């Protein structure tokens, strides 16, 4: 009886652990190559807009296409496997599709142009230390909530009119 109870408890514990792990990883974002933001933004001093070309002009900043990688990665640079992988994409002509990390609900209308080009906000204000990461984060580094937006809008004396963002 005791063995059955012990076995049952262990089973429940394993079940909970599996469920928690599954829940934690349900929304995890994986990228096709291990992009090193620190290398590109800190060591090479590349501007964010080089790989996110619409960041100052559009709603969405855009993600780098293989053509943008090809500007530097026509031949293998350095010794990292990620660099070799990118060069492989470039030389084979296969599409390189990066995935969005930060997402907003469909009823939130946000434009990068307004925040980056007009308000001149640094990317780190909303994206945290993404520029310092050496491997692609699987989850956003900052949890963006309406409270997060409103806090900044009030601090900067900007509109808090609902229809400016929800419509």
């Amino acid at each position, binding site marked *: 009886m005791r063995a059955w109870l012990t076995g049952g408890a262990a089973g429940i514990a394993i079940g909970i652990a599996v469920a928690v792990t599954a829940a934690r990883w349900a929304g995890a974002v994986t990228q096709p190559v291990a992009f090193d933001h620190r290398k590109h933004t800190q060591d090479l001093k590349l501007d964010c807009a080089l790989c996110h070309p619409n960041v100052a002009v559009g709603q969405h900043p855009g993600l780098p296409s293989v053509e943008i990688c090809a500007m530097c990665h026509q031949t293998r640079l350095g010794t990292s496997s990620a660099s070799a992988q990118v060069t492989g994409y470039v030389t084979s002509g296969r599409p390189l599709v990066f995935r969005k990390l930060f997402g907003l609900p*469909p*009823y939130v*209308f946000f434009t990068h*142009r307004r925040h980056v*080009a007009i308000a001149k906000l640094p990317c780190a204000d909303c994206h945290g230390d993404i520029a310092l990461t050496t491997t692609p984060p699987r989850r956003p580094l900052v949890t963006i909530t309406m409270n997060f937006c409103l806090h900044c809008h009030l601090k900067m004396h900007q509109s808090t*009119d609902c*229809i*400016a963002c929800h419509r």
Partner: protein
Amino acid sequence: MPRWGMVIDLDRCTGCAACEVACKSENNIATVRPDQADMGRAMSWMKVETKIEGDFPDTRLSFAPRPCMQCDNPPCVKVCPVSATYLSPEGIVGQIYPRCIGCRYCANACPYTAKYFNWFAPAWPDSERAHLDPDVSVRPRGVMEKCTFCDHRLQQAKENARAAGRPLRESDFQPACADACPTRAIVFGDLDNPAHRVSTLKNDPRATRLMESLGTEPKVYYLTQKA
């Protein structure tokens, strides 16, 4: 702070319904089946009302495009239990869809019947599905929706003006209905700005507002000789 308003010249309106079509297209207004429309469940933020006077052959047709009146004293706002509808600082009565619980109090409070309930999940004919406006959300079943004077265009216009480093001009922000009107019967602008045409037209002797006696202070004015 601007106070957006509209002037509709009924003597110029030909009843072509271009405003109605433009509004539906601009704001992702879902279509319903004919039998559902017969039950009064069709949505049309801009509705061209037709009135026929006299007996055939001595008849006279008149038309009245009816958007939301964007009242300065909106009855719909007063009854909303969750503040999903509110009067914005620029005088637009906004509707926040994710906050709406679909109680329909506002639809009953509105004397202009300008608020619509989504009785069904949004649907469009296949040919139109690819043309949805990405700047306007697709409202789910169970929420109220209404004309917002194409507020998304206002946000875009403000952004363009700020990026260009200049103030907002009258021509920067026009709702889809005013843009589409072939006879220029619909004029839109800031009612308090003397440089905008609406501020002059609203004082025209032909100007009138719907159900003024209710004290709702609508910001849509009609120009008509018959008033």
